[in-house]
């Protein structure tokens, strides 16, 4: 035993505990992915609500509801951006049975926490994305008679989604890493699993080196996949010329 080197131990741990590592990586990816997707949806929803235009001629009920919604959204964003996710995890996991009488299972609690956390960041990113779209895009849509919602759905949000895709990918990568804090509520993600393997064998350096490589593989792969998606969304670099037939202005209906 004494003669076993660092690499011997790494191989031995992989050999004996690979199902535990794999299980941990699966949970990490699962929580990060679902959390990012739900957080993205929350962000879009809140970003859209926050950019609903108010006209001075609108009635007081609409104005009041929007004002209240904006205050609530601001509180949500500030609270979840302004506190560590590890603390949020403790509060929500141990607080939910006492406050709402629901005991969440660990994975569900993990997904919940990552989702609302991501949502708070995405809400800001989406709002910035909507504001940064050229005013002319809104005006052109309004000028052909599209409503605010039609404009959002058909013209603005597709551009926002494309523009914030890199930021969303960034959130996903952060989530893969930050799920490790969920170990404090015993979610069996990669960090938690690695800690038990390490503890059982008193081989912390070796076990966490394995975890390190696994995190790196996950984040690297996700980054690459997102690059490909971005390029897909940009559409083809070239366009095909259509068969031409002669322009004929006489076709324009005589509306005189």
């Amino acid at each position, binding site marked *: 035993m004494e003669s076993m080197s660092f690499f011997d131990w790494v191989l031995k741990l992989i050999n004996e505990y690979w199902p535990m590592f794999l299980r941990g990586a699966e949970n990490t990816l699962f929580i990060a992915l679902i959390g990012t997707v739900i957080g993205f949806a929350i962000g879009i929803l809140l970003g859209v609500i926050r950019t609903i235009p108010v006209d001075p001629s609108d009635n007081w009920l609409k104005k009041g509801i929007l004002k209240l919604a904006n205050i609530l959204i601001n509180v949500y964003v500030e609270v979840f951006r302004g506190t560590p996710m590890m603390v949020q995890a403790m509060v929500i996991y141990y607080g939910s049975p006492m406050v709402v009488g629901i005991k969440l299972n660990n994975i569900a609690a993990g997904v919940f926490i990552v989702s609302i956390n991501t949502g708070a960041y995405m809400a800001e990113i989406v709002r910035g994305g909507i504001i940064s779209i050229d005013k002319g895009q809104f005006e052109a849509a309004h000028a052909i*008679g599209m409503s605010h919602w039609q404009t959002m759905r*058909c013209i603005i949000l597709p551009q926002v989604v494309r523009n914030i895709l890199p930021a969303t990918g960034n959130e996903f990568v952060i989530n893969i890493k930050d799920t490790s804090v969920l170990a404090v509520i015993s979610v069996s993600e990669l960090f938690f699993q690695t800690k038990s393997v390490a503890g059982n064998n008193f081989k912390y350096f070796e076990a966490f080196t394995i975890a390190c490589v696994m995190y790196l593989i996950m984040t690297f792969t996700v980054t690459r996949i997102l690059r490909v998606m971005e390029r897909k969304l940009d559409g083809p670099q070239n366009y095909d010329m259509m068969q031409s037939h002669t322009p004929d202005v006489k076709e324009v209906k005589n509306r*005189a």
Partner: protein
Amino acid sequence: MPKSHSETLIEIRHLSKSFGNHEVLKDIHFHVDRGEVVCIIGSSGSGKSTLLRCLNLLERPDGGEIIYEGKNILDAKMNVTAYRAKLGMVFQQFNLFNNLNVLDNCVVGQVQVLKRPKNQAVQTAEKYLSTVGMNQFMQARPSQLSGGQKQRVAIARGLSMEPDALLFDEPTSALDPEMVGEVLKIMKQLAESGLTMLVVTHEMQFAREVADRVVFMDDGIILEEGTPQEIFNQPKHERTRNFLKRMLNQE
């Protein structure tokens, strides 16, 4: 080519608009007849764009009336989007939808606003894209087109809605000089086809040749209007004369 217009399409009464304490439109009276081509000229800041934008409610006027089909559009109960769909708008900066290709730029409004079936909307879009000579570029994205091509697509997008009138706000001012001609040529053809057009322009030659009526705006009012002949050859006001002298010297 004198045409006879009688039926009024839109009438504006007592229209006013301020930005802060800056009164940009002062008690404007104005009308457009069906089939008429009206050119609006005037120096920078005189309120030409604001008038056009008030007409399709991109800006909310502070007071006055916009009468369309016998009703005042500024009444709170009026359906603003339905009215806007009846007036097309072509912008100086083109404002093509960046997320859609050329064909879909001309289809989306027909499907969403006019509720036309997709295949009928595509046919209509193809028809007007060939009108402006852009039917070969249906699959291209706006970023892949030149300025002149973009503006032609923007015109086709407006035409695809088959509006009662098309409004143009300096459609050639953002173009490189060699592309101005292709856009003006199409606008001229549209004018001859009988389309009702309201054009804010600095192209005096175009106004002279194509307009049925020329409107000169100065500091928030319509100072003078008449046939191109009247405005360009016998302007009544000193300020009109000075403006025209400046413009014609540049050309």
